[in-house]
């Protein structure tokens, strides 16, 4: 992470989860998790509720279709999905 606090300022429970994900993946857990778990009252908690409703909640689009839109947009933004 470019901001050291996002690396070091995680709750212990989240540090454990990140370590487990890292072990499971065989590589560093995605930084997006660190970003949404850092100071969750400022951003991550509220973003997560919206994201979950949009990506998993009732919709005319299937979950797979919505994930495909997200992957496509990330590609256009040159952002690893």
């Amino acid at each position: 992470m470019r901001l050291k606090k996002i690396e070091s300022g995680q709750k212990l429970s989240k540090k454990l989860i990140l370590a487990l994900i890292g072990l499971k993946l065989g590589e560093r857990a995605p930084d997006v998790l660190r970003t949404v778990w850092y100071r969750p009252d400022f951003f991550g908690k509220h973003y997560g509720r919206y994201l979950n409703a949009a990506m998993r909640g009732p919709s005319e689009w299937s979950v797979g279709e919505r994930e495909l839109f997200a992957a496509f947009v990330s590609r256009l933004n040159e952002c690893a999905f």
Partner: protein
Amino acid sequence: MKSDATSQKKNRIKPAEPGRHAEKINILKDRVLEGPGHSDPRLRQAVAHRVAAHAGALPKDDARLPPEIGRYIDKIALHAYRVTDTDIEALRAARYSEDIIFELTVSAALGAGMARLKRGLSALTGGEDAA
């Protein structure tokens, strides 16, 4: 069968959706752009506005950001993948704390996301400014 498929397809893009997540979006915007933090909320709002203006969702405004913030924010708005450690170092050198940099970065990302959402929904409802 064909007409069924067609009407189903029409249903999928009927423009009844824009308000579906409005409450959650408003909470998110309120918290990030107006809530307590290490940075002045007015600075966060100016950042989000500048990014939205880059995306064509809001008119340009002349709210002046400190130049080092402006350079960083413009980079996020136009090509976030080009941000490097050097950009963060420049902000640190200008005595911005990591929490302030975090808040301004989130504000910029939110401004960019909301601008895209606005233009996308506008396209669904037949708006002409979504090109």
